[in-house]
């Protein structure tokens, strides 16, 4: 074998070594969390969190147990329920509104159009802090949502505290519209135009064209937008903290902050199980639709 060949092979080997080391860097915190989360708290020593619990075989690693996951589920059940009540309507609404805005703003021909669109784009980058105090004022002191919602509390499955989740749904919808509009507009610029022209010649109205042509062609984009919004809203803490505040309507990220800490110290197996459980919906979505997620974040 020539030296050039050996050289190229060595380079290739080094390349893969670096790539695998970096994969380890990204995976290790999650893996140690996973291994710790399936260790029974009584046998947990913390001496080797990077190994799975195999007590009888390997000493000091702790023994296997699903108890932390069970306890984490008990601790987070209310938060998980509230998060699902929040995330599903907020995701769908912000996606729909984003699609409508993108269609309407690419459609109308008037001078302020780019200005309006620039406002939508800038809205993506506004820090939540800039609106928190007004939003708290709005939902607690200006709009009597709590009393407006009271009659609905008699319905099955509806609780009086759900009004806070309604406030959070509206807020997240409004904040999600800008990014959804951006994603849809990029997609609508690439749509094939023959069908739209044909429909136009057939005398189809603006809304018929949207319902019959643009909307069905947006389905792949809806997948990207829904995945992106689902992850964003599920993962958010700040809006929940200030609009819902701690209580019956707490979402999962709020519940996760305080879990696993007590007077006796930190229960790491419980805390790691809770962190993974709270992350599970977004992890599942990511593993199943990773490419769509990448498409969403890079737009």
């Amino acid at each position, binding site marked *: 074998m020539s030296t050039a060949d050996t050289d190229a092979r060595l380079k290739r080997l080094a390349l893969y070594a670096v790539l695998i080391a970096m994969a380890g860097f990204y995976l290790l915190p999650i893996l140690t969390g996973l291994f710790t989360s399936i260790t029974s708290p009584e046998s947990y020593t913390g001496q080797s969190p990077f190994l799975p619990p195999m007590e009888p075989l390997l000493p000091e690693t702790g023994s296997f147990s699903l108890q932390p996951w069970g306890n984490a589920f008990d601790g987070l059940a209310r938060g998980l329920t509230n998060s699902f009540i929040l995330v599903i309507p907020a995701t769908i609404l912000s996606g729909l509104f984003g699609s409508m805005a993108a269609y309407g703003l690419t459609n109308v021909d008037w001078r302020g159009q780019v200005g309006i669109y620039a406002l939508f784009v800038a809205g993506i980058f506004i820090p939540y802090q800039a609106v928190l105090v007004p939003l708290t004022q709005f939902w607690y002191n200006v709009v009597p949502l709590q009393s407006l919602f009271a009659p609905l509390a008699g319905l099955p499955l509806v609780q009086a505290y759900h009004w806070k989740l309604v406030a959070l749904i509206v807020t997240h*919808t409004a904040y999600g519209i800008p990014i959804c509009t951006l994603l849809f507009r990029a997609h609508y610029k690439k749509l094939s*135009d023959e069908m739209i022209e044909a429909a136009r010649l057939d005398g189809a109205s603006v809304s018929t064209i949207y319902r019959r042509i643009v909307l069905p062609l947006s389905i792949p984009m809806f997948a990207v937008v829904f995945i992106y919004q689902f992850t964003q809203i599920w993962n958010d803490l*700040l809006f929940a903290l200030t609009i819902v505040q701690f209580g019956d309507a707490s979402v999962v990220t709020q519940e996760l902050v305080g879990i696993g800490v007590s007077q006796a110290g930190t229960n790491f197996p419980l805390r790691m199980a809770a962190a993974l459980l709270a992350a599970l919906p977004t992890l599942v979505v990511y593993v199943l639709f990773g490419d769509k997620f990448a498409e969403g974040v890079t737009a």
Partner: protein
Amino acid sequence: MRNPIATLRNRWSDSDARTDGGEPASERSFLDRDSVRSAPFWVPPFLLVGLFVYGAVVWNFFLSLTDFSGIGEPDYSDLDVENYFVAFSDPVDGFLSMFGMGGEVSGGTPAWSDLTVDPVWNSLGNTLALMIGFSAVCLALGLLLAILVDRGIRFENTFRTIYLLPMSLSFVVTAKFWLYMYNPQTGLINIALGVFGIGPVQIVQNPDLKLGAVAFALIWQFSGYAMIVYLAALRGIPSSHFEAARVDGASTIKMYWRVIVPQLRTATVSALVVITVFALKAFDFLFSMYGGYQPGPSADILATRMVREAYANQNWAYGSTIAVILFVMALCIVAPYIYSQYRRGEL
């Protein structure tokens, strides 16, 4: 590729393309009717964004001019910029303190408080340090990963998926993982240091390491994003550029530095804007890491300071003032970006 909706629009406004051959006068009303008809599509989302985003930003500005604190209603009859003077009080020493210089920084005593209220210099300095350090390392690591992944490797998808994985997690979850990694007794980092006979080192509560530890965890979470952006940009560079550089006999490193990196400017700018704004919003992470509103002075950033002043201390007006400062910072980053997008016709 032609934009179908733009084509449609031209058709509607261009009288030559009209198929019903109407009079110019009726054409105007026809056009009006169409813009009115499409209004239902963009007006409801625009109202929501206008009310909850921009309306709230304006309202927040007025709140920052009041003396609103404690429980009760804000009083809008007496507006002044006192809070801004408190926020930036002692400007010379305060400014120098961001670089570790200058004398003691003293606060101000606004009308709504009997106590001295600290200015924002400390958290402003931490915010800038975090933004600059975190974004620079994030971009550099992202670029490096993108170049490695772009070298025709096997299992490319698997590597990409792994590198981007942390991005799908919540700040709250990431903080829990890293709190565990940094733990002096059971954390992986201290176990690794122990192998070299160092430690155990207190990281999370150590004033000298806190901000670095936060930045490191955020880099772990977001460098995959920078990689994806750079990878897309690298794929957009014609392969002839790579080959030309190779024919010139440039080494791989020289080739990337001279030929490829300069072509990644657009990608760098857009990734930088997104990542710096992420750093501005790192509140969720700090709240989860420190279990509340008190990360301590050496890791206090404007994002946490704002929420603490408003929601823990109920100094609502002062919280709003810090929020305006944050908003202006975000605007300074985003406005030039959007304007340049507009100039290049990409908006």
